[in-house]
């Protein structure tokens, strides 16, 4: 019990630890950096949440980025047309279209989620670009500053907060949350218990749409401009949040609060990045560190079981040696 507590504290203290490290080694990296770090880790967190609906169910999804952009574009256009209501409505619409699309495709094409998501990325990117060109000026959508201020820092913190709360509510306070976990754990057994697994997955995808909506809101408001990316450009947006989620999925084993873990994960990543910037390093080092970090975390988590087995064996052998 006590051990658990310490680990929990350790996890929560991690960002501060990283922060202090950079505080000392990188000049110009100080308290004033904190808001930046927070505001920069907002969009990735939202994307992370979107993926965290799906990945625990044992599925893979590359499309949140594309869906988010679609939401941002539609939102921006409608925002320009009919103001704040349009912004929210549009973003929601766009994001949900994506969610529904992938959910339906996955359910009725019956092909691996990863493949579906690849196709969806292709389509969604092109779609958002088309929409931008049809209803707006080119693939770029701008919204006036007064609209943009709606979900801008520090307001976007509230957005993420609500998103996290929703996520927490769904995962820990509804039947769906439990079932999503169970699905990822053992789909067969769940089926045999008479749970409609397809339905669970379907809902999971839909749910991820909601978080794409939050992401979309912040994306468009963050800089007042959003540009439709094509050529799988949105996939690169997804990778870093995905890493955050992967890491979080390991952390929850210690401290069972997915949204918090995702948030912490993102904060850490962003802190490191800003630290590097403050030290005048360019982003190539960042990527390398990121990759190594991912490998280490996954490597450890994947091998704990084997390590335990080996340790047990060694124990047994030692004991018998003592006896002999």
């Amino acid at each position, binding site marked *: 019990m006590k051990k658990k507590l310490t680990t929990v504290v350790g996890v929560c203290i991690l960002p501060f630890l990283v922060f202090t490290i950079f505080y000392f080694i990188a000049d110009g990296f100080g308290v004033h950096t904190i808001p930046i770090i927070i505001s920069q880790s907002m969009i990735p967190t939202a994307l992370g949440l979107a993926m965290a609906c799906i990945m625990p169910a044992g599925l893979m999804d590359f499309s949140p980025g594309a869906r988010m952009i679609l939401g941002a574009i539609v939102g921006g256009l409608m925002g320009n047309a009919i103001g704040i209501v349009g912004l929210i409505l549009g973003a929601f619409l766009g994001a949900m279209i994506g969610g529904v699309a992938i959910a339906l495709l996955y359910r009725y094409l019956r092909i691996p989620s990863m493949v579906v998501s690849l*196709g*969806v990325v*292709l389509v969604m990117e092109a779609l958002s670009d088309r929409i931008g060109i049809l209803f707006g000026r080119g*693939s770029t959508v701008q919204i006036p500053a007064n609209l943009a201020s709606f979900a801008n820092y520090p307001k976007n913190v509230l957005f993420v907060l609500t998103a996290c709360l929703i996520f927490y509510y769904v995962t820990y306070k509804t039947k769906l949350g439990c079932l999503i976990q169970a699905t990822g754990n053992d789909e067969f057994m769940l089926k045999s218990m008479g749970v409609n697994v397809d339905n669970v997955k379907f809902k999971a995808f839909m749910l991820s749409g909601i978080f794409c909506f939050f992401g979309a809101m912040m994306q468009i408001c963050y800089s007042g401009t959003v540009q439709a990316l094509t050529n799988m450009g949105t996939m690169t947006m997804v990778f870093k949040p995905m890493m955050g989620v992967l890491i979080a999925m390991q952390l929850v084993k210690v401290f069972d609060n997915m949204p918090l873990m995702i948030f912490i994960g993102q904060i850490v990543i962003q802190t490191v990045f800003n630290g590097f910037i403050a030290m005048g390093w360019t982003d*190539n080092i960042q*990527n*390398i560190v990121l990759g190594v970090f*991912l490998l280490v975390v*996954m490597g450890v988590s994947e*091998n704990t079981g084997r390590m335990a087995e080996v340790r047990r064996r060694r124990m047994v052998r030692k004991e018998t040696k003592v006896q002999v």
Partner: protein
Amino acid sequence: MSFLKKSNINFRTIFPFLGLIIIVTLFAILTKGKLFSLVSLRSIMNDGIYVLLGTIGFTFLFAMGCMDFSIGYNMGVSCAVACVVANTFHIYAAIPAAILTGLCIGIVNGIVVTKTRIMPMIATMGMMFILQGGVLIILNGSVLQAPLSMTGMYTNPLKIFLIIIFIIGGYVLFEMTVFGRVAKAIGACPEAVRQTGINADKYKVIAYVIMGAIAGLLGFISLARTGSATNSTGVTLMFNVMNAALLGGVPMTGGPTTKFRGAVLGALTISFLSSGMTILRMSAQNQQLVKGIIFLAAIGICFDRKNMKVIK
């Protein structure tokens, strides 16, 4: 019933052929034969060679139920290294340099995947990030130019030679050697392979090495074609290759249904499709839209759900 299943399976096997024929003939008509003018065929070849070779390598991984996300940046890094070598030593030194670089990266991938038991996808994703940074460091940020004579090396005969060699070699390696058979076996049932005393890890590493070497070669090809290495070299390779493989009906789960022809057909389909659409003056976005829809439809039709318990 059994008859129905049979016919169904047959359909699945011929679908890639049909797809290719349909697309080729369709665009041949739409472009009034322009698609087959020598120039266009050459452009198809020049763009297609990346996808084709890449897919051939990827098929071995797919057959084992593995993947490699890092091939794109692997290609980039190899290209950069080759460029540096070509500038410092000799242009011919670039060839082994590129291939070796890719090969080494392949080895690392293979070892990480087999020893740490990390999901291939995630492991190679990590590698991808590392290479992404690495290429910038090697290029020292800016674009590198190779000696002019470089572009002279990359003649059409060479390209055709490469393509033929890889198709034949790939076919032989995949369908007619122990390696190919074991690769499929691993995809079909790893446990059975293990209980037959075959060292699956070894074969996996080999597959990754092949993939890496091919990526390296592609890096060199890109260098020889453009005479320059940039940080954006090969970025899109991964997705094109994956699309091609899946379009060709190569199952991600691997196993005996993996067919070499799938890779070739898929690559051809993609190349003809994209160049056909360019000739028709479709905008990039529409092209992507069409590709996406065809992608989903094709896989929806020809995906083999027979021996999949749960579809993740």
